[in-house]
């Protein structure tokens, strides 16, 4: 049984192209807003950060929690979403 959300499935199902950062699983309006403010306006920019951290979900979670007011679940969801996307497309 899959425990991923629909957002996750939507994101991982296709190349992210120019999707906004709110398309990431776990990133809703609020987080998306705060990420955009810091310059991470597109999902691929966040992907870039994820890759910089060598696709380490744990580090990515730390980073995301620092940069935004994400809680653990949101950060985990986002990291997992990116990881799955990388597994599929990278």
């Amino acid at each position: 049984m899959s425990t991923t959300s629909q957002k996750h499935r939507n994101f991982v199902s296709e190349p992210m192209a120019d999707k906004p950062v709110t398309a990431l699983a776990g990133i809703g309006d609020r987080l998306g807003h705060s990420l955009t403010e810091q310059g991470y306006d597109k999902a691929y920019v966040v992907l870039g950060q994820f890759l910089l951290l060598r696709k380490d979900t744990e580090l990515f979670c730390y980073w995301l929690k620092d940069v935004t007011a994400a809680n653990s679940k949101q950060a985990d969801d986002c990291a997992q979403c990116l990881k799955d996307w990388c597994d599929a497309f990278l």
Partner: protein
Amino acid sequence: FFSSPKMASTQLTDEELFSQLKCFGYTPGPVTENTRPVYLKKLKKFRETGAPRPVKHDVRRLSSGRRPGLKSSVLGFSSDESDAETPLKRKGLDHMKRPSRSPHLQQQQLKIRAATPLNEANKKQYGVGTALKSNSFPNPDGQTSASLGWETGKRYMHDPESRDEDVSDEEVQNSHPVNGRSAARLNTSKLAGEYSDSDEEEVGGPGGPERDRRSLELRRIYTSGPFASHVDDGGSRIGGKNCALNPLGNRAMAGGREEFEERGKKGDLDASGGLRSHMLPRKPIYLSLGEDHQSKTGENNHINREEGASGSNMASIALRPRYRGSYSPTLSPQGGYSNHSSVPNHAYGPGTQKKKPTAPEDELLLQFKREEQPSSGSFSAHYLSMFLLTAACLFFLLLGLMYIRMRGSGSPAGDGVIKSHPFGSNFDSSYSKTEKDVILKLLLSLHDHLAIVAGHHDCGEQQYASRSLSREQVTQYLLAQDGDFKDFIDVSLEWIIRAGQDVGIRLSGELADDLVTDVSEISWLESTHPRMPFTCRFRRALLTVMNKVLVVAVVVGLVCSVICYVKYRWRREEEETRQMYDMVERIIDVLRTHGEACQENRDLEPYLPIPHVRDSLVQPQDRRKMKKVWERAVKFLSANESRIRTETQQIKGADFMVWRWIQPPLSSDKSKMWQGKAFPLDRRNSPPNSLTPCLKIRNMFDPDMEVGDSWDLAIQEAILEKCSDNDGIVHISVDKNSKEGCVYVKCLSAEHSGKAFKALHGSWFDGKLVTVKYLRLDRYHQRFPQAQGCSAPLKASSLHQTPAPCPLQHGGPNSSGFS
């Protein structure tokens, strides 16, 4: 961003960070401005746990458990745990100037967060079970000391040589460059880490009153901590020095309790001398604490000693194994310390006294570490040894008593016979003194002799075949004793007869138990107070005691064995029941999946034969063992499970008992269902009358979790269905983006909205509790201008949907785009 407790983070360049991370066997990505804080945090984690991946959950749990009181400064802290509060607080944070990112708050928050992984790491690493009662530390103190540390840390960066002993609480303005700031943060986080470590560890120590002093202490120590770290010039040497430098560092860190300044100066010099304890500076700090205590032993009052105990406590907890080597000898001297405290302290108390300031510290810490670990075990060991001791004492006591009793029973009247005789005053008057003496002496020797004979006889010695002596033997013996006795034998015997009380000699006639009344009838004399030799007595006493103990032990053993057996049986029962339930669950799962598969695939039969289920769940080698469990499970299912029906079916010509999965009506999560009311609506939870015709319904859905394109339609349908008796709903709007799952409804009149309110408020929908509130009509129209024109009631689309003049009404499915 927060930073690691590594000292002198100003000097920690990217390359160094990179290489250090590599030392832990971890390959980091590029260290850039963005990734730097993350890697610093990682480095810190490595330092504490040595493992590449410390458990995050523990961190969170730990941090959520601790410090419930730190509110204002712990903004980031709570964000780790709870969704609800964080957004508000974090929002506040985010709205501050982003570039400057209010340093104090952030740092505090960061430091707290840094602290928590530290704490967790420590906790895990040292396994301190007893002392971790984090909540007990007073929060204001904690805050103050943390901020203090931060300030002083910052100051250190400016001017390493001048230790500012002032402790002021004002907010420090961050005027450093980024590096400096991060260094400050590093310090604070480190301090906070240390602080919180001491928090968690020292709590095991004495109670409240000493806390203030301790917090003062800690403050000092913290100030010394970063100072030392800064003094270290580029010392990014992990691993390396320890003991040799720690004493120095200890003295440095003993920025002590009351005499801050002088200690501080001392600490200055010493720290600059080369404290390279890159390892958690906690250690030297705690060492110094301990040392401080020892040096002040004379003047310290009990509280101080207590603190010393806790300080050394902390030190021991904080130390790594390499410190173990040297501390054992010093721990013994401190005997009577802190006896009033709890047992863990008791264990530590004896250890905190130290003779020499420097070298014994290691041993002390070693001993602490040793003592600390077995402390929980020694608790019971202590009791066990006490128990054994008391048992042994009791045994010997019993033995002694037995002995005395034997002896007492055998003790002769002794000289008393001579002095005081039981013959009465007649005796005295009848005879002269010498005669009296002779008679009495005779009687005494007779008595003794008889006693010895009886005693020996009783002890089983062969030479005395019988307990009693014949008269001839007695006469012989007495004559042998003393010639004078001859005349007085009969007299004394007569007196014995005449004596009212037992003189220790029993006279009997020809037959054993005859009562003699005359001297001539006496043929046997026997002692009633046998006197046994010492060994005999001891042996008998021992035997008696052992017999009794044995009996008691046997009884106790029987009782224990019965209890154990009963417990064993009970446990076995439980185990079997658990297995049975486990099996039942597995069966249900199998049947459910089969049922679902049947729904999709019409070719499958909707039932499963029982033996097939069993064979698929239980391995062949286990079938025999699980037979009993399986039988019970089957019985349980047939009796207690409503979703599974047992029936007999013919499968390929053979009759089988099968299980049929009966799909429960509400198990489908595809359709959104109303699931009943949570509470009855009364005056308490709903307004007495409906106020406006507009309603806002909350918690109907979760926007992140919605599947499909038209889920909003489903929501609308659901609402309409729920209010199907209500003809007054003219406009519905599902706010797709609202995270609260809001739906806006307008009704024809307040009365209709009231009806809808009653129908919707407090109901369960799709597993969520729906709440309704009234909205102002003008606001509603502001938001949904098209709703102003709606006046025709909406109906669920399963029924015929009436056309309405509302412009966007007809496209029902698309009307949700309003918000």
